């Protein structure tokens, strides 16, 4: 096993990887931007190396500096997390060329799956169903012609992309030119590659993906599915396993899991990956969407139902260990749901809400997992994804998991920025969600006009405000000073430290 690993990421996933490394006895080096000098990841890692300023283009996307940092700190491997350079084949190659291990698949597999058109051709050849689509050459006329053949509605997607960036639904030919332009711009910014393609769009769709793991000795398993149909603007916000749709369709689950393995095999995949499918909720047909050649944000739901630690397995596989189990050893037990808590305003087109996290109190309860990279005193800035935390509930049954997740959301205190907590609770409470009828359009269909609750002001809030003012202005003590003390409360002294925040 590696002695020291560099983590080329930030936020909650960097923290998650550090914790996995700690359990394996691996030392960690994290790279960070100036904006993250005071971050939890920097605090928890054994070492931290500054690689640039806040904009990712000057830090987390600077492959050269990251590889240099890994070399200088004598790391043996680089874990890319997700986002940033995690699906960048050139980066994986650079890591390899520097004599280090990239914790992920080969550059060839990343490249093959990264180019959507190539990926589609490969998996189609492996017998995996794909959506009717058109890979453009950049000429608008050709796109328009192809669109007529595919029929509307259709999706414009970035050829190099993932995570919803550069993606647009187009319902008629009038909308297409503008969509092509906008998506091309976004794709160029996000992936430095503005190529696009068109794809048939399924209205009543479920987004279901299959987690796979493959070692370097030819062993490959799947870890069942995750359903991620609850999305807003093509961004997943609630993910679960098992999929409520597949619970009554075991043959379909099996077919999808087998298709996922074939897709992965088509590029000789190693390490952890996810094969995303779109399922037509009416017909039960499923189509390959893309393969994410990295860890997913929603990996914890699989960890909960399969009793695995995907990050630790990634490291073991990268270190050359064989998979510690075979397919027959794996199971999918209980029900797990994750929701992503964002600093954003769901009533205002999900606009990110930047600002200081004045108070953060995560919930604590049995079978509640909180993956977060921020704490009170940190800021949500324009530079990075405004995700505050992932909250994962695990229970025996789906209704219990929903109740548990809701109770945890109710207990989560976040002050200083607007969050989507109230929104998430309303989604969980929606009859369609409760029944497991979770298609990708649920949010836009049922929550377009969502407004946060505006409860009347309870007297207790005024009491709390008054007490806090009163205490602060220095009322006489009830008791003698307790022995315990917080010498660093920023409130207590005029000298407040927040370096690099």
């Amino acid at each position, binding site marked *: 096993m590696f002695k020291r690993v560099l983590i080329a990421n930030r936020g909650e996933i960097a923290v998650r990887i550090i914790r996995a490394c700690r359990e394996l006895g691996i030392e960690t080096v994290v790279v960070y931007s100036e904006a993250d000098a005071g971050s939890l990841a920097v605090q928890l890692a054994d070492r931290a190396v500054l690689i640039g300023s806040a904009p990712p283009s000057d830090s987390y996307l600077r492959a050269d500096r990251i590889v240099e940092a890994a070399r200088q700190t004598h790391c043996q491997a680089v874990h890319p997390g997700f986002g940033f350079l995690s699906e960048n084949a050139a980066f994986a190659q650079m890591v390899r060329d520097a004599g280090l291990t990239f914790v992920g698949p080969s550059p060839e597999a990343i490249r093959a799956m990264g180019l959507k058109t190539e990926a589609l051709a490969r998996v189609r050849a492996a017998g995996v169903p794909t959506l009717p689509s058109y890979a453009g050459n950049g000429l608008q006329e050709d796109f328009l012609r192809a669109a007529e053949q595919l029929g509307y509605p259709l999706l414009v997607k970035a050829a190099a992309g993932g995570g919803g960036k550069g993606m647009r639904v187009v319902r008629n030919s009038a909308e297409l030119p503008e969509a092509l332009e906008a998506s091309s711009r976004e794709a160029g910014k996000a992936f430095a590659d503005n190529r696009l393609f068109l794809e048939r769009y399924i209205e009543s769709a479920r987004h279901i993906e299959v987690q796979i793991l493959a070692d370097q000795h030819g062993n490959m398993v799947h870890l069942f599915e995750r359903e991620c149909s609850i999305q807003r603007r093509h961004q997943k916000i609630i993910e679960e396993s098992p999929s409520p749709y597949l619970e009554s369709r075991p043959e379909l689950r099996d077919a999808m899991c087998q298709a996922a393995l074939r897709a992965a095999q088509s590029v000789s995949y190693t390490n952890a990956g996810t094969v995303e499918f779109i399922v037509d909720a009416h017909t039960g047909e499923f189509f390959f969407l893309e393969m994410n050649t990295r860890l997913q944000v929603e990996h914890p739901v699989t960890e909960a139902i399969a009793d695995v630690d995907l990050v630790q397995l990634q490291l073991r596989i990268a270190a050359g260990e064989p998979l510690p189990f075979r397919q027959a050893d794996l199971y999918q037990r209980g029900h797990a749901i994750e929701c992503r808590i964002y600093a954003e305003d769901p009533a205002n087109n999900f606009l990110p809400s930047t600002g*200081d996290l*004045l*108070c953060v*109190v995560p919930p604590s309860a049995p079978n509640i997992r909180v993956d977060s990279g921020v704490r*009170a005193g940190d800021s949500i800035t324009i530079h990075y994804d405004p995700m505050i935390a992932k909250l994962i509930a695990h229970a025996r049954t789906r209704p219990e998991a929903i109740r548990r997740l809701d109770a945890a959301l*109710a*207990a989560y*205190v*976040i*002050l*200083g920025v607007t969050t989507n907590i109230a929104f998430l609770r309303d989604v969980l409470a929606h009859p369609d969600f409760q029944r497991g009828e979770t298609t990708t359009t649920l949010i836009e269909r049922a929550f377009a006009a969502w407004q946060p*609750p*505006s*409860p009347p*002001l*309870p*007297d*207790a*809030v*005024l*009491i*709390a*405000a*008054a*007490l*806090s*003012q*009163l*205490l*602060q*202005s*220095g*009322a*006489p003590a*009830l008791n003698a000073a307790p022995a315990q003390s*917080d010498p660093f409360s920023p409130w207590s002294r*005029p*000298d407040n430290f927040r370096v690099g925040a």
Partner: protein
Amino acid sequence: MEFRFEHAQVVHSVRAERDGESFRVRIGERTYLIDLVRAAGGELVFRLGDQVLTAYVARDGDAFHIALNSQSFRLSLAKPSARRKAAESGAASLSASMHGQVVRVLVSEGEMVKRGQPLVILEAMKMEIRVTAPHDGRVVRLLCSAGDVVQRAQPLLELAEV
């Protein structure tokens, strides 16, 4: 002490004071006897009858962010009407320029002061900051005393022009 909090464009007046080991809080015509259970880390736990409530309070300038029972509220400190009226009649309040502690109060209510005369000495960031009279005037009301920890923009005293 009387506090005025603004929430959703409505100003709420709250009187709060010690009553032995408890606090008496009056909101409109409702009076509550409150026992403070715990106050640490922005967390305020208080008893109201057999209910124990937990509020999280964070200050951001004049704004109060308060979480209670899975909901959060944003209040702001309203300018006391008395002060506002005083301002109309020619008195203006002098405020702390930064978070700090009042070291000394150099004047008393009713006293006539000259422009530039030091009124209050604050200590903040290891510096002494002298709050001086912006004009000749009379100290209408003192709103702080030595030892108080004051917030940025918290009024220290009212000074009437003469």
